């Protein structure tokens, strides 16, 4: 896999939940070694798209190509095997298990006699690479804070050395330093040749790391932008109008006497 090779190609992907069309004719390309940001308002279909790629939902129609071959992502297991790792917004951690068990869940070393020592060493090594501040990897997830849980979830997605890692709002619950760490981490992952799909509402974060910004609106593609695009243009694409609540608010602020 060379840097810049096309890994994932979506064409005409549609997903319907009964009468609701959550996704319609979605196109998306992800290359090795690039960060693609997926932005859009609430209900734009970002999470549905991520879940489709993670094998949680199956698309109603459309094609998904993986490294040039058409694939069906019929279960989370299939997606993981192909090399699509996902960090969901709700993190999907087992609160009754400790950090090591959660990191290696479903992929334990030595399935007939779990190698706890080796797993713990790898857990610590990985967490140190991420400069993560986890007090103990032998505590159940229930005892960790929101930021620490996010870190564990991201660390877990990296363990399997995926080709693409999808992050759903990874920085939403993080402090300033931890956000910077996650952004650094995203760049490190990209530089290792992985493709990254990043969902975020934070335009600052998106522009800081994204190579391309794909805008979704009401379940459809609404343009592809780069980090150089101005904030106004992005907001216009997201809301679907140059005259929107964000621009009106800006105008009002500018109009007010200082």
């Amino acid at each position, binding site marked *: 896999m060379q840097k810049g090779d096309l890994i994932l190609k979506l064409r005409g992907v549609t997903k319907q939940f009964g009468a609701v069309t959550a996704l319609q004719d979605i196109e998306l390309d992800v290359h090795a070694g690039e960060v693609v940001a997926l932005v859009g308002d609430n209900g734009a279909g970002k999470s549905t798209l991520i879940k489709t790629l993670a094998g949680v939902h199956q698309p109603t129609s459309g094609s998904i190509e993986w490294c040039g071959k058409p694939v069906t992502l019929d279960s*989370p297991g299939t997606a993981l095997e192909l090399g699509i790792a996902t960090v969901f917004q709700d993190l999907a951690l087992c*609160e*009754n298990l400790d950090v090591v068990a959660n990191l290696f*869940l*479903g992929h334990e070393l030595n*399935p007939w006699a779990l190698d706890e*020592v080796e797993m713990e060493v790898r857990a*610590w090594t990985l967490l140190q690479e991420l400069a993560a501040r986890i007090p103990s990897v032998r505590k159940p*997830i229930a005892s960790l804070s929101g930021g620490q849980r996010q870190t564990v979830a991201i660390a877990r997605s990296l363990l399997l050395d995926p080709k693409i890692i999808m992050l759903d709002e990874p920085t939403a619950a993080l402090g300033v330093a931890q956000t910077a760490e996650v952004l650094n981490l995203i760049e490190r992952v990209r530089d290792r040749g992985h493709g990254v799909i990043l969902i975020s509402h934070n335009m600052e974060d998106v522009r800081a790391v994204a190579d391309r910004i794909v805008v979704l609106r009401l379940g459809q593609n609404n343009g592809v932008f780069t980090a150089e695009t101005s904030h106004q243009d992005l907001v216009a694409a997201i809301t679907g109008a140059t005259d929107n609540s964000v621009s009106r608010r800006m105008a009002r602020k500018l109009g007010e006497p200082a």
Partner: protein
Amino acid sequence: MTDAQLDRADSRVRHDEGLSGALRAFIDRVRSGDLGMLPVLIGLALITLVFSTLNPVFLAPNNLVNLLFDAAAIGLISLGVVCVLLLGEIDLSIGSMSGLSSALVGVLWVNSGLPMMVAIVGAVLAGAAVGAVYGVLRNKFEMPSFVATLAGLLGLQLYLLGSTGSINLPYTSPLVKFGQILIMPAWLSYLAAILPGAFMLYSGLKTMQRRRAANLFSPGLSVLLVKAGVITVALLACVAYLEQGRGVPYMFGVFTLFVVALDYALRRTHWGRSMFAVGGNAEAARRSGISVKKIRLSAFMLCSSLAALGGVFAASRLASASQQAGTGDVNLNAIAAAVIGGTSLFGGRGSAWSALLGIIVIQAISNGLTLLNLSSSLRYMITGAVLAIAVIVDSLARRSRASHGRA
């Protein structure tokens, strides 16, 4: 201890080292609601105190030997219940399943003349099949397990025993001997009492070495020695006391072997980890690539198979297969044993040992009340009350753990 250790770098965490540290950590755990085996030990102490005061025969070695004989069958059933409880499911038909399996053994072996082992294997396979049905109902139709198994409780009837309603098993057969008189030789019992401590020491030392080599913290040698020592002394004392009577029943030994095997499977294998994960957060487990449906199926099949084997044990204990088998308080006792032993009804927490400890508590109560010549209805009421208390303790401990930030 240097700060260079991988897991000792965070200065915010208090590190409990050595014996006093282990003790402090234990007290912390109990305070936050992580009670472990503590309620069982307290319960056992209370029961012993009450019953031995009311009737000194309770503590006689031979009475305790009988208690162990009686405990093995329902203990095995309870072991299966632990599996389904870990997933947050339930099986209410275990009693009926055990009755059906004892009837199958009677019909296949005594009436049809098949070899004994074939009959036993057949009964256990029938159990697995019934469990598979529950699993499929749960997986395909999302049928709550308490409804499916409640249907099983009523549906698994013992028509095959014919009009007399009971089949006597031959007294001289190995199966009945196994259930009534076979006792482990003294040397084997003592060996079995020493093995756990020895193994603990061996594996503990090996882990310690590996952790040191990997630059991880390891609790000191003193903690390990004390733990292994206490276990060995306690087990040796138990065996020595039982040896003053008839000794340790083979039946109980076999049950313990099953407990050890399931404990290993739950704690040290991918399957066991998946069981806890599904019980803790099924959606998270699914997204990690674990096949939640297969895990559920395996748990229901294991539960029913163990219930069937427990039924065989019960038949061998009673030397008969009758329509009464598996009725009455069998269901209640088996589920109560698992919960009293510390397996949570809410899924995701528990251990194989809870079946063993819990069944000893239950059997001690039942045995003590029988010695007092109390009627069986009173016995049911008291067992029911004990189960209620165990569930309350489980709920309160769960709430406390939640507020203390533990799972």
